[in-house]
């Protein structure tokens, strides 16, 4: 198992290299001048020129690239042009918001997706199955910002139960965090919950047909044991493989959700950075997010080995 994790860690290095190269190249391909953007509309050409030199943007691109990788080798992601502080520090300020939102959305995704998938499979073709699958279809096809808007209108504007936006740090006020994050997390979760419900249903249906389920019933095990132990533990294997994808979907979906609910997360930070051509911030932020996703996917592979002894003993 440790071997699996180590091999995957090694293979992540080229992935991170390519991502860093692409984000570096893309930023320089899109038109726009960071110095002009930062200096503001009232700056004179001379001022802009001085700023450009200060930021090292007068250097040829290949020199900038070498600088960038030299920094990375030292573990230095550079400084944000716009914020004036370290890329790493800026990311660490905003990442908890996004991770908290995604984790909360993940809880919704797993609860709604797995539970409704299991019920649908156990009651195949019943009204409960059809209702669950229709719900899943809606979750998949309704854009999450639209769902978020509907929720704001209903729960914030009409009923006044939840705030329509704004962020409360969990450490300061856990209940306030929950109140401010429930609508964003729920609206963000629906797409993934719908996908997971369908995957869980088909995975459970497949497993319930297997001989070992008949064996479990032939032994006189209670229904709960047959379903939750014997069936679910096998059905979880394909489900776990999509968890990595679901985390990626949640993080990219979070960008829109953060904008809608005015949450100061990574989405906001990176959008702002792209608009103001904050090269180091975009490059460093993307690299950190990618690293996080790579780590999630490695954990998924390890979890896969924990769940399936046939993989573990290879």
């Amino acid at each position, binding site marked *: 198992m440790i071997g699996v994790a180590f091999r995957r860690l090694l293979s992540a290095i080229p992935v991170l290299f390519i991502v860093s190269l692409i984000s570096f190249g893309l930023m320089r391909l899109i038109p726009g001048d960071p110095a002009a953007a930062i200096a503001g509309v009232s700056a004179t050409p001379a001022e802009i020129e001085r700023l450009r030199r200060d930021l090292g943007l007068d250097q040829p691109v290949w020199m900038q690239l070498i600088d960038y990788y030299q920094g990375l080798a030292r573990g230095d992601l550079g400084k944000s042009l716009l914020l004036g502080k370290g890329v790493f520090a800026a990311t660490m300020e905003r990442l908890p918001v996004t991770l908290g939102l995604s984790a909360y959305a993940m809880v919704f995704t797993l609860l709604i997706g797995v539970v409704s998938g299991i019920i649908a499979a156990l009651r195949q073709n019943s009204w409960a199955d059809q209702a669950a699958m229709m719900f899943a279809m809606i979750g998949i096809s309704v854009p999450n910002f639209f769902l978020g808007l509907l929720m704001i209108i209903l729960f914030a504007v009409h009923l006044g139960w939840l705030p329509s936006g704004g962020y409360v740090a969990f450490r300061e006020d856990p209940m306030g965090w929950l109140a401010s994050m429930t609508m964003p997390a729920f609206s963000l979760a629906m797409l993934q919950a719908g996908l997971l419900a369908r995957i869980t249903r088909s995975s459970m249906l497949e497993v319930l047909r*297997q*001989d*070992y389920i*008949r*064996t*479990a*019933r*032939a*032994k*006189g*095990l*209670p*229904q709960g*044991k047959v379903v939750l*132990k*014997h069936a679910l*533990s*096998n059905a979880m*294997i394909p489900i776990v493989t999509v968890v990595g994808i679901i985390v990626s979907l949640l993080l990219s979906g979070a960008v829109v959700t953060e904008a809608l609910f005015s949450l100061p997360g990574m989405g906001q930070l990176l959008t702002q950075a792209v608009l103001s051509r904050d090269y180091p911030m975009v490059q460093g932020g993307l690299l950190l997010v990618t690293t996080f996703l790579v780590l999630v996917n490695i954990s998924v592979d390890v979890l896969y080995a924990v*769940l*399936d*002894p*046939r993989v573990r*003993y290879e």
Partner: protein
Amino acid sequence: MNLLDVRGLTTAFMTGSGEVNAIEEVSFSIREGEILGIVGESGSGKSVTALTVMGLLPQPPARVAAGEVIFGGQNLTRMSDRQMRSIRGPGISMIFQEPMTSLNPVFSIGDQVMETIAAHERLSQSDLRKRAIDMLDKVGIPSAARRLDDYPHQMSGGQRQRVMIAMALACNPKLLIADEPTTALDVTIQAQILDLLMDLRDEFGMAIMIITHNMGVIAETADRVLVMYAGRVIEEAPVAGIFDRPLHPYTRGLLECVPSLVEDKPRLVAIPGTLPEPARRPPGCRFAPRCVHAQPACTAAIPSLELLEPTHTAACFRARELAPA
């Protein structure tokens, strides 16, 4: 007093083209400690019979359309699922044709044996472990204590079938149903598993219902034999009666193509034609299209089982006249 009485059992399946009877009016009994063999070509309704007794067919599409299954004075077809669970294991248990897929791949074999016992008896974890080791030992798993934490994929087919047997006998059932227990195994392993079943019958004293399409297996194991064709019982007799004086033309055909347990090559099928699907069964005697003795009268009605000799019944209009003197 019989251990199991099956009377007039008819199990129907809902299919795309309506309801069809997979088995019809199946009746038989098993005495305590007896080995009843059920034999017939693939598709004749042996598994459906066994699974109906166990209450393991998914309903729907399956439905017990008629008849009863009396075990320990109770009609199992009327039991709730909860009541049935207390029968499965300590009352009746079952092993299957596919040892490779009948064990759960993600749990250790020790876990799977122990949970069977735990479902029916209150025992401490260490007692469960001891019982599991003891059972694996009894079915001939070498150094059972060490193999308790092994997973099914680490074992051969024969060993997995041994684990299945250990699980099935862990709660001391009164009846073990073995549905083609050796069909998927190598010939040499087949003989070992059959020997094991016979030894365990002597040790535990349970009755066995052994299902097979192989007359060789019947000869090795059964005390009494039930022959099925197209969902119906067509002959029943003690094993000697079946082999020495088969009264139904179908049974005679089966005996002519008996594959030997020691030779690996089954001989050519001696009965021309194929078993009809439940929805395409011919009128009258179901065997008529394949029967060399068929006469027009054979297709007019379904022949019923008749007691032709003291312990020998057969369902054939011409059985008496065709019987060897």
